[in-house]
């Protein structure tokens, strides 16, 4: 298996991109495991370039209104609401 150096700062960076807080123990564990797993992913280098057939085509349909969730249904699972809105954390 080829060397894939992964350091704790990389794991912290990716975790911040993914918006997942990690404690130090998780950072250590993931650093070790990711080196293993990404090292294994390296074997993808051996895959030849393959001509991919474009087998997908766009399918259109008319844009018609139909019944959706009521406001009450849409809000029923929210941890917090205010005046019929979702309540979220501040933006900055």
């Amino acid at each position, binding site marked *: 298996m080829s060397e894939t150096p992964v350091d704790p700062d990389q*794991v912290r960076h*990716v975790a911040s991109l993914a918006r*997942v807080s*990690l404690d130090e123990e998780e950072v250590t564990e993931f650093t070790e*495991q990711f080196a293993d797993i990404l090292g294994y992913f390296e074997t993808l280098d051996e895959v030849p370039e393959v001509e*991919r057939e474009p087998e997908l085509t766009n399918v259109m349909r008319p844009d018609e209104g139909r019944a959706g969730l009521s406001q009450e249904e*849409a809000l029923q699972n929210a*941890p917090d609401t205010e005046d019929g809105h*979702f309540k979220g*954390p501040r933006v900055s």
Partner: protein
Amino acid sequence: MDYNAYVTEERIEGAEEGRLAGRTVAVKDNISTAGVRTTCGSAMLADYVPPYDATVVERLKEAGATIPGKTNMDEFGMGTTTETSAFGPVENPAAEGYVPGGSSGGSAAVVAAGDADMALGSDTGGSVRCPAAFCGVVGIKPTYGLVSRYGLIAYANSLEQIGPIAPTVEEAAELLEVIAGPDERDATTRDASEALGDGEATAITGDVTDEDGGYDFVSAADGDVDGMEIGVPTELLDGADDAVVEQFWAAIDDLEAAGASYHEVTLPSLEHAVEAYYVIATSEASSNLARFDGVRYGVSGGYDGDWNEAFARAREEGFGPEVKRRVLLGTFALSAGYQDKYYKKAQDARAWVKQDFDEALGAADVLASPTMPVPPLERGESLDDPLQMYLADANTTPVNLANLPAISVPAGETGDDRPVGLQFVGPAFGERAVIRAGSALG
């Protein structure tokens, strides 16, 4: 005995009449049920109650089925053992002390234990076939686009299908008939009547269309494999456990005795299927699971700091280790500087796997392999070594990459009574071919 197979035991009654009237069909807990909580095996969704039914649930109810409850699963479908659930691991009723396989472990366990007549699972990289194999029951992963995913909480959309689990091939085929068919709410489904009724595979066996049209799967479960040609990809036997390989060849002998013949075939692309699968699946997961921010549903991250901090706290609290691991791996694979190296190469590998399968299925009605290269693992065995767990998916993930149909049927046991499963893979919409092959062993 309590196998911890249900997350929620709450009965949902279907119509009074219908082909499934009087029968129970347990539903995996990532498939939405209106008014009954749907957790995905995650603390994130422990209190989530969907306001609508998945299309497959609507179809079960219309067919008269009773849903006895929602089955336990690896968190968000991410696992091969049903040990990553926030609601605790599931026991294997067919092999005590061993895992039931995953991620639809609860669904396979309730069927194996006889607590439900049938069940629905979902299969992203083997999650129906693996637990079916480990629990000694039948599971089908349909062709991509045969069954609606509307209301299935997404893990990796381009790979997954909902599929049936049942004690026999015929019952699995029957349940597939109920849930299959196009759905305007899932644009990746299509009317497959023609493709199903007139597939190349059935043409080779000389049994072409059926008068009932393409969606008739039950009549294919006739055990008639006389003249069937079976391809055996050697790559899927190479790394397999001896006891599993022994049962595999014994089953092929039985099929030969029934008039089928087999030949070995090499599919070099399969060596790269597991890594391609994990790159693609985790990449899609990192995008799909971005919706869990604790605002519209799920665990709230509170209001301290800005939204990035609050979301990161919600996800720290709501997600278990395997989900964090896969979201981070996917984010890594898609991040600047790594996308070409991982994601693009994985898409090349996926196209290669498809080509290899197409070629092999040009010279065979179905391909056969052990469903899992190993017998059921001991509980706890793979939790500390995620890569080891990923490698156990070597035989199932290629099928998802190629969007093909496959069935897992019981094929004996190892010397210490652990169930072994055999997998048949067919061409796209060749459900009848894999059902027919499977029924010859059932």
